[in-house]
């Protein structure tokens, strides 16, 4: 019996083999894609729930950009990103800044100012536990759906920060 199976498999034509391979690749790709879609849906739901719970503590009409600032991770990256955020993202329209720092590794003095309207301090790790961003980063929403996620780490940090700064733009909260 074993011999028969072996000879059958040897007799499979190259076209058949290619077909089986393509089917296998297609199935595995589509299952990966659905996994990614599912993960993103879950992340989206949890983020929306999180934003709803903190909605009372911020004065933003609609949130399009979420900037998460923490001092955990690569120290120079987080420090640079928080400096950019304190210079360019404070009181920007549609932008929520979530700060997870006691001010030891990064300077949070700008975020502590009474005139700042778009900052939430978060020490319970509720945002981190959503699992969307590991360290500091940026989330862009489109019709209440996550559109773009950017992690701040040493890889291409300048181009990432340039992109984020451009997206958030120059508009002030009225």
């Amino acid at each position, binding site marked *: 019996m074993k011999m028969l199976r072996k000879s059958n498999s040897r007799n499979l034509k190259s076209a058949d083999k290619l077909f089986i391979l393509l089917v296998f690749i297609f199935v595995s790709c589509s299952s990966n894609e659905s996994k990614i879609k599912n993960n993103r849906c879950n992340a989206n739901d949890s983020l929306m729930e999180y934003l709803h719970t903190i909605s009372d503590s911020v004065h933003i009409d609609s949130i399009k950009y979420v900037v998460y600032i923490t001092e955990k991770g690569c120290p*120079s990256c987080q420090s640079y990103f928080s*400096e950019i955020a304190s210079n360019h993202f404070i009181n920007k329209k549609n932008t929520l800044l979530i700060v997870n720092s*006691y*001010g*030891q590794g*990064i*300077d949070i003095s700008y975020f502590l100012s009474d005139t700042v309207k778009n900052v939430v301090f978060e*020490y319970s790790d509720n945002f981190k536990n959503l699992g969307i961003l590991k360290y500091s980063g940026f989330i862009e929403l489109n019709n209440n759906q996550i559109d773009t996620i950017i992690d701040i*780490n040493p890889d291409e940090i300048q181009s990432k920060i340039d992109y984020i700064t451009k997206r958030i733009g120059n508009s002030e909260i009225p």
Partner: protein
Amino acid sequence: MKHKLYFAFLLLYILLISCQNNQPVQLIKVNELVFDTEFKPTFFNSGYFYDKETNQEYMYFADVRTFKKLKIFSLDGTLKHEISLKEVIYGNFIDRLIMVHFDTIILTTNYNHLNRIFFLNKEGHCWKKIFLDTIINTPSNDIFEAYVSRCGNVFNNDILYLHYDRPFLKNKVSPTNKFEHGKYINHNRYSAPYFLVFNIKDNNNRLGANGLYYKFTDINHNGPEGANYCFTNNILFVFTSYTNKILVVNPITLKTERELFIKSAYTTLRNTFLKIESDPTYEYHNVILQTKANIKKIEYDKKNELYYVITLHEVDEDAKIRGPHRAFSIHIYNKEFKKLNEQCFEADTYDPNNFIITSKGILIENSKTDKSHEDAKKVKFSEFKISR
């Protein structure tokens, strides 16, 4: 009958004595202390100093990023002095604050402002500023960076022990191939002097302990991560987060006199150096430092003539509690470095980074149970005594 009774008492007495002798030396919690700092200080900008003029002991806590303040307390938690650091700190470039005396507050710098040292007095005024590149007698080809350890005391009798790091050479172009580039940096770094010994009074300085890194690893492996050393009981101890080895270095000759190996009954301390062909991302090193068992601190207790070596226990990479709040051990050694005990502490109880020896007792910072900003504004320690 009377003899039997005497005999029974004698037996009981011997039993009690032998039980007492078997009791290992250990730390027993006796008290809690609270320091109302109004900010959350980092362990490497906190510490203890003894004022010889007044015979007083003090605890100090500094914030060098946001509030830029130094607060000095007596051991009972009373605030004695508050110093603004704003005259010197105008950006993110201070690495460590070391308080030696009320008028000798040393600030060393990080990658944003390399190789500078500032000296402040109790008014927060800078009375001396050093740019090491112009002062030290370094080999002319060296491109160096000087750092101080965050793992304990780095100062003794006007001498500041700095770590000399030489990743590049002026006259040599770094190879473009990733593997060769890694080897090039490791060779420069590992063959360089490890210590820069700097006298803060007369600026006298010398380099020493050449090739010390090779006692831990070879150029085909990345790490050790840098300045992990401390000066205690007239000895320089050098260690890394990647092995269980400790080097005992003579502070005068800067020669290694002894190698010690730490073994734990609760965790496996092993070699975790990363091969240079692997991806040496920050994240990978971070995972090693956050989850693998490693040596955190070495301190000497003069009163009890004991050494304490703190090792963090290994946890899974996806463990909820990683970093310094993991379970840890305090290995207790006598002054000849004979092991007397290993005492285990549960996760999320203490932060052993802040392990301070005072005349009152041994202080270990409590882990924060409440993560609110209000709670973070107070530093809480548990005070321990030694029981033999």
